[in-house]
Structure formats: structure tokens, C-alpha cells
């Protein structure tokens, strides 16, 4: 049975309680004022994106087409900042409502480039789910692609030379028609397309 505390001990207990409550108030202040990078805030806190822009190197040789099937696993890995899963046998699966690719090259470029993409849309329960894919390069929207589910489609997207002057292309593929595969599946797991190959080629 707890005995009543002696006076000095009681005062110390009151004081410790007050200190703890003050410390908790400070921590709660930190809770509502996080100090984090923009990509962290967008993905984890504000949840304005399902694709957290990870600082991958984007190491790439300009003019090559990289396979996003298992045979190109190593070459594709540094090109995928976020929003991808795999590769599996039928390609690298986009997960979430957008995915990113990063190409960073050292070769000199003078003229426009062409973004080469081989895509196929997912199926849900065996039913085709055609997808529209918005393509942004270095924050500028270039085009919208229509991707079917029956067979892979090849796309060449013109990239103006002025967009990629520093040897880096940050490409965002947005999936406004991404599919929720189950009732409780969160947006970070929505499905849209599978990527089979990608590259930046001289136009």
C-alpha cells in the first residue's frame, strides 16, 4: 500500500510532475512544427504525393535504352527515385499516383532529345484498365500518353533542348487514372502501368 509522502519528497514529486508536463508541452510544440526536407514533408506529413523523391544518382549513358525487365535490373536501379516496384518478369510496376525517373549523363548535348518509353497498362481481375499518363520533364508537362493493357506500347516524347541543359532529366509520370485494386488499398499502392524500357535518345 502506498504511504503518504513526506513533505520534502511530496514537493519534489510535484516539481518533477511539473517538469515532465512542461517537457511534454515542448515536445508537442515540436510535433506541430516539424523541421524536415520538402520531399519528406510531401510524402510523410502532407501526403501530397505517393512518390518520395529519393536522391538516386541517375547514372546513365545518353542514347542508350535501359531495360526495366529483370535483365536490366542493375542499370535501371539508379534511375528510379520512387514509385516503382520490381522488376518482375513483366516489367517494373508503377505504384502510387505518380512515379519518377532520373537520367543524369556526362555526354554533351546540343540538340533536342527524345524520351523513349515502353509501357503497358495493368489489368484488374483480368479486365483491361487503360491508363492516361502525364509526362513531366524537369517540372514541365510535355504530353499525355494513352496506354492500353493488351500489348506494350512504345512512345517517343520530344524533349526540348532548353529543358535539359545541365545533363539531368527528372521525369515524373503521373497516373490520374490509377486503379485501387482493393477496397482498403491506400493510394501509395494504387496500380497503373508497367515500364518495360526507357531511355533518352538524340531526336
Amino acid at each position, binding site marked *: 500500500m*502506498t504511504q503518504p509522502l513526506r513533505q520534502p519528497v511530496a514537493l519534489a514529486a510535484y516539481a518533477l510532475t511539473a517538469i515532465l508536463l512542461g517537457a*511534454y508541452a515542448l515536445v508537442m510544440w515540436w510535433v506541430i512544427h516539424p523541421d524536415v526536407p520538402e520531399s519528406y514533408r510531401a510524402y510523410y506529413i502532407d501526403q501530397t504525393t505517393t512518390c518520395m523523391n529519393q536522391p538516386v544518382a541517375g547514372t546513365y549513358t545518353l542514347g542508350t535504352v535501359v531495360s526495366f525487365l529483370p535483365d536490366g535490373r542493375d542499370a535501371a536501379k539508379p534511375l528510379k527515385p520512387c514509385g516503382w516496384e520490381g522488376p518482375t518478369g513483366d516489367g517494373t510496376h508503377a505504384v502510387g499516383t505518380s512515379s519518377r525517373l532520373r537520367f543524369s549523363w556526362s555526354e554533351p548535348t546540343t540538340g533536342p532529345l527524345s524520351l523513349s518509353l515502353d509501357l503497358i497498362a495493368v489489368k484488374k481481375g483480368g479486365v483491361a484498365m487503360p491508363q492516361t499518363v502525364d509526362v513531366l520533364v524537369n517540372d514541365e508537362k510535355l504530353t499525355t500518353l494513352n496506354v492500353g493493357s493488351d500489348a506494350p506500347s512504345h512512345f517517343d516524347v520530344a524533349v526540348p533542348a532548353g529543358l535539359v541543359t545541365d545533363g539531368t532529366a527528372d521525369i515524373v509520370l503521373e497516373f490520374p487514372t490509377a486503379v485501387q485494386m482493393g477496397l482498403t*488499398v491506400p493510394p501509395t499502392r494504387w496500380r497503373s502501368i508497367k515500364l518495360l524500357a526507357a531511355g533518352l535518345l538524340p531526336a
Partner: protein
Amino acid sequence: MTDAVAMRPARTIPLDVTLVLIPIAAAVVGLVIRYFAYAATVDDASLASFTDGICRWDCSWYVHLAEVGYDGFPTPNLSNGGNWAFFPAYPLLVGVLIKLTALPTMLVATATSIALSIGAIRIAWPLLGKNLYAYTLFAVFLLAGPFSIYFTTFYTEVLFLFLTVCVFAALQQRRFLLAGLFAAGLSATRIVGVFIVFAILIEVWLDHRQRGGTFRDFIPAVFRRPDLLLSFALAPLGLFAYMAFLHFKMGDALAFQHVQRAWGRPFGLPPVFVWNALLATPKDGFIPTASQVLGVTTIVGYILSAVLLAKRRFGMAAYSLVALTLPLFAGMASMLRFVSGLAPMPLMLCELLGRNRVVAVIALLAMLVGAWYGTVGWLTQYLALV
């Protein structure tokens, strides 16, 4: 000497010694069963590889935490799933011990887990009504039962259960300040540990009523007792300390919560998840699916909570209901682990089974057999056990 006295078996081992020997025996039997299950399941199994070989799923996260600590942002492997999701108390404890002993991490973790289980069992003696059958069943459940993997490898469940038992043992003796101290550790072990404060509050209320107090004078009475105030204030200390650490490490005191998004957990109503799990019937045959096992486990958890309520163990019941229900908002994943590691659940189950000697013996044998299948299921990635 009467016949009755003559027929009574002489007690040759003192009770205190018996209470220590029972969990030690359970620990040895459990190790033997799990090792043979491991050897029968894994290629190239050896005694040397046992502790590492049985470390699966989240265990590897805890090993990394104990050896390396928390990752920063971005993580070294550029994964969205940072290890801030895992609470620090148990990996920190093992991390300190591996620094002190210089022994392999899983060896230290296994020894620590078994020691904590033995400690939890011994401390639970008064919580089990001082019933030797229930006590033995509880020992076998933790150390040689179907879910003994959680309490004998490197999972946070063992420290969580140990501290929960300590809190309730302290509350039973009305040592509220001690309960608050253990609760502080509990809230640094798993997020739901912070809700033990409700159990403390209920026990304080019941104590107040026993002393003739009324509802109107409850709050003034608590304010007159600095030990009670301090107990309440101590309970969330572990959680807030971890949040403060995350603020300095990540800039986000709620990083442990925010990172859950990376695991793509669903969010919904618990009854819907349980119903859907129960309806997830097998495509062939009659063996229940992993989802169905999780659904049934959850229902068993609620039944045991109801029994706790019926037995007027309001603190345990309230804590169990909160700790059961909150994880359910994120789906059924890991419910088997959560229920078996939620101390009032196995305590109540063993107390019920221990009321009858025949039932107790059958349950004990079933648990020992279950240890084999639980280990095999663990090693063959049976999803309900994750």
C-alpha cells in the same frame, strides 16, 4: 498421523524454488523443441546457426537497430520505410548488452528474451491467482508454446509483456508510483504501451472508492497525492522521450507514425477488417487461411477482454480493449503477435485453462506440440505468424 496426512505427497521443493524451476524447465524444453523444428525445416541447420537462423521478419530490423541504431533521412538504402517505426526500448537494451559482452547480437537477444520471459512469469504469480497449473501454463505459453518465437528471439513483444506484467503486479499492490515507472518503460517499447495509463487511472479510481471516496472528490484527492500525479506523468515518458529523440534526429517528432505510410497499410473500421478476414475462405480444402486465423485470434482477444470485464479486472480489460482495437484500424496484420504479446490475454487464458487439472494437462501438451508447428510455420513464412 492420519491416513489423509500420510497420503499427502511430501513437499520436497520449496514453493519459491518451484516457481523458478518451472519457467527454467519450460525454457529448456522450448529451446529443444524449437531447435529440432529448426533442424527439420532449414537446410544446413546447425546449433551455431540456430539463433541467427530463427531471426525472421521484423527481427532483422531489431538486429540492425541494436547494432547500428536509427537511420537518418534519407535512409542508407533510399527506402521509404525507415527504421524509426520501431520503438527503441528493447533494441536499446540489447544494444547496450552486446556492447558490454561483445557477444553475437542474436545470442545476446535470445538470452535476454528468455531471461525477461522467466522474469515475467515469476512476477505474474500473484496475477495468476497463485494457481500452480495456471502458472505452469503461462510459463509454457511464453517459453515453449506455439508463439514462443516472439518471446525467445528478438521481438519487442517480450519486453512489452514483461513491463505490462510489472505494471499490473505493482497496481495489484497499490504501488502506483512503481507502476508509473514501469509504464514509462512500456511506452518506450510499443506505442500502445502508453495506454496503460488508463489502467493506472482505473486502479487509482478503484482504490479511491475502496477508501470511501466519491466521484466529486476524486480529482481533488488525486491532486493531494503527488505520488499519483507523478505516476500519471511518468507513464508516457518513454513515448515523449522517443519523440524528442526523433525531433533532434529527423526534425519530425512523429516520424514513427508518419513512416507507417511507407508500408502501405490500409485504414478502415476494425469490424470491417475482422469480417473480411473471416470471409477470406481458402480456395481449396478446409484449412483456414492466414486471414481467417487472424480474424479468429482477434475475436478470441475480445472474448478474453470480456472475461476480464466479467471478473471485474477493469484495468486489464480497459487496457486490453484499447491495445487490441487501435492496431485494427490499420488492418489485421500481426494481430496474432499483438494478442499473444498483450499480457492480460495469455494471463487470462492460462488462468481459465488452469482451473481444471485435466484441461490444464491437455492444454500444456497442446502448447508443446504447438511449439513445433509454430516454429515450422515461422520458418516457412506462414503469414498469420508475422
